[in-house]
């Protein structure tokens, strides 16, 4: 795969290309970009994830579905170690990013989170200008040249389909944007650090249908260059945007497969019940 021109400066600004990054080959796509192996997670003494083995394919969209409280968000947060922020927690097993365990003590969490970006369920723009929201990631990574930042901001906003709406008011407060725009801004913000993997936790749950479909279109476009894991409660959405779907139930991974197969011919009874709306 070739780096699109819009991405080239990002690749240039982050130093030597990493294996398995956007510059990868077709063969890379066959390997899982990120993979959890026998992952158990505990909040204090209560276990939230049980022995999860889930490979996530590079440059594809993987949807996580399941009833509320089944551990989708918890699993998503284990992938970029956002669970580290929880005070009493325990984790066993592995999460491999390009074959390297992210829970290895040698791993730099800050670098990991730059490679694995995250978009939250509720949009959380910083109380700053639109420009500063997007430029924050590159800035803290050490990019301070205005011209480079300008390029990154424009590019990220274009990729998140927000550029045309905000190009004339980049210095306005991000909090003046609509809910849908704020969520796209958060996506742009995540893209600005040029991550390899993008984790999205119900990115459209608080949005109206038209904003939702814009975000869905966006996901389909972004999977050209990014590996995407998306949590959703909306079966249609999962069917529309994802290539693979994983069904979680009570902290366990019940079934995982190609979206079309999982939705049309689920192997497990629980999956069938859930997607046909019999519970959850």
């Amino acid at each position: 795969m070739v780096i699109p021109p819009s991405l080239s400066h990002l690749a240039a600004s982050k130093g030597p290309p990493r294996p398995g990054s956007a510059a990868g080959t077709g063969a890379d796509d066959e390997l899982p970009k990120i993979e959890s192996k026998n992952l158990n997670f505990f909040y204090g003494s209560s276990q939230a994830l049980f022995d999860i083995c889930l490979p996530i394919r590079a440059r594809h969209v993987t949807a996580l579905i399941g009833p509320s409280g089944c551990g989708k968000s918890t699993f998503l947060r284990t992938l970029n170690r956002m669970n580290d922020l929880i005070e009493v927690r325990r984790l066993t097993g592995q999460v491999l990013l390009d074959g390297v365990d992210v829970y290895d003590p040698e791993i730099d969490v800050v670098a990991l989170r730059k490679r694995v970006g995250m978009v939250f369920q509720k949009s959380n723009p910083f109380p700053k200008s639109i420009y500063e929201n997007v430029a924050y990631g590159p800035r803290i990574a050490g990019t301070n040249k205005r011209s480079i930042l300008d390029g990154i901001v424009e590019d990220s906003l274009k990729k998140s389909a927000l550029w045309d709406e905000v190009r004339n008011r980049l210095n306005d407060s991000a909090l003046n944007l609509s809910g849908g725009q704020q969520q796209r801004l958060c996506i742009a913000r995540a893209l600005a650090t040029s991550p390899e993997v993008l984790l999205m936790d119900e990115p459209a749950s608080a949005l109206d249908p038209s904003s939702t479909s814009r975000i869905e279109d966006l996901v389909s476009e972004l999977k050209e260059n990014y590996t995407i894991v998306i949590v959703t409660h909306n079966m249609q959405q999962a069917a529309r945007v994802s290539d693979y779907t994983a069904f979680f139930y009570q902290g366990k991974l019940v079934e995982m497969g190609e979206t079309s197969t999982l939705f049309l011919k689920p192997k497990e009874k629980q999956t069938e019940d859930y997607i046909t709306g019999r519970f959850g």
Partner: protein
Amino acid sequence: MSHVAPAPAKAAGTPANSNTPFTRRAIGVVFELACGSSTWVGLLVLLFLIGILIWRASGYFQGPVGVQVANASPILVVGEQSQEHLKGFVKLTGQLTVSKTGRLEFAATKVKKIRRPVEEIPPARVTLTGLAVRPSQPSPLEVRLGDLVVTVPDATTLPSENGVWQLKGTPVLNQGRLSLTGEVECELVEEQAPAAETSAELEGVATPPRQTVWGFLSNSDSTYPGQAGLLAGFWGTFWVILFTVVISIPIGIGAALYLEEYATANWTTRFIQLNLANLAGVPSIVYGILGLTVFVRMFGMFKEPGTWKVLGLAIPLPLGASVLSGALTLSLLVLPVVIIATQEALRAVPPSIRHGSYALGATRWQTIWHQVLPAAVPGISTGVILAISRAIGETAPLIIIGVPTFLQETPGDIRSVGQVFQSPGDLAHVPFSSFTALPLVIYQWIRQADPTFSVSLSAAGILVLLAMLLALNGIAIFIRSRFQRQSRW
């Protein structure tokens, strides 16, 4: 009609009648009135207070309460009947007697008010009669008036024989404070001659004990109400508060950041938290005693006061009642409040902001510095400024640590802003200078017997203090609205 009437009847005497639409509305109205009236009463009391202060102070700036003849002490007051308006001045003729205590006394009744403004003060003429003492050198000549000795340094004529002399010069009274250009008429006697009954005649123009507002702000304190001003108190307060801010803000914000963002919730942090809340409520006089022991006396470690020379500075040890001691004491006082206000402001920053920052690969420090602190600035600045406003008005701890209530010197001898730029070297002496503060000056004035001090000047001083507090609170509101426009969530 008919279906309304039974309802109260049925409910009468039962608790249920507190729930009829009428009682609900009545309770609502009563509460609204109660809350509204307390607000209005508070506002009225405040306006009344400010009104009284302005009224009392304005007497001092607009017209005289008494009439002062030059700088005679106490103020010479002349009778209303005898006053003769002369271009707005009062002409005084009377007997001036010199008492044994060294004060000039002038017997006359009181003038309540002279309405016309003073435009130009012709020099007062005073005739002193007494015994002149022949000096060993030709000059200066000393005139003995009772127990007082008046020196006439620039006497122009000095006859060699005994007799009545006319001297032209500036008599300067040593102990009393008469400083007038005038004539001295005296009898030259031998040095051993006995002190005779003496008297002085004073003919002059009464000038009221008053000054312009600018004079009030730019003069230091004085024992003459016509010259007393706030300058020393203002600069003392300015420096002490500046140092208090410089000391307490970094420490306070740092401690709050540590407690909120770094420390894990355990026994120790809970203990600290509890004590912070207690410390914020400790009476300020207790901090004064603490400051006296720790900073002013330094536990008595130094047997004799000495100085520690470092970087060309002479730092007195122990610190004594210096600007630095005052600022450290006030810092202790405001720190708990600053820490608690900052903690609350930090807690109000939603966790989603932090998570967003961490998810972009920010370190904890970057998250705090770039996201949490800016979002907390309105809350922090409001808390800090309220704490500082409290410190400005503090009198008790400063009195306890021994800050003088009457002082004419400003810290580092800096009397104007321009001076700071002209000789920045003076700044180095500021922290170790003695000082007085606005509330102390006002306190000192209020205790005076002279109503010009205890009524007019103190009211004017309180108005200046209030104006400073209002300005500070204005800054707080400005910062708040400025940052809040950005940080809604």
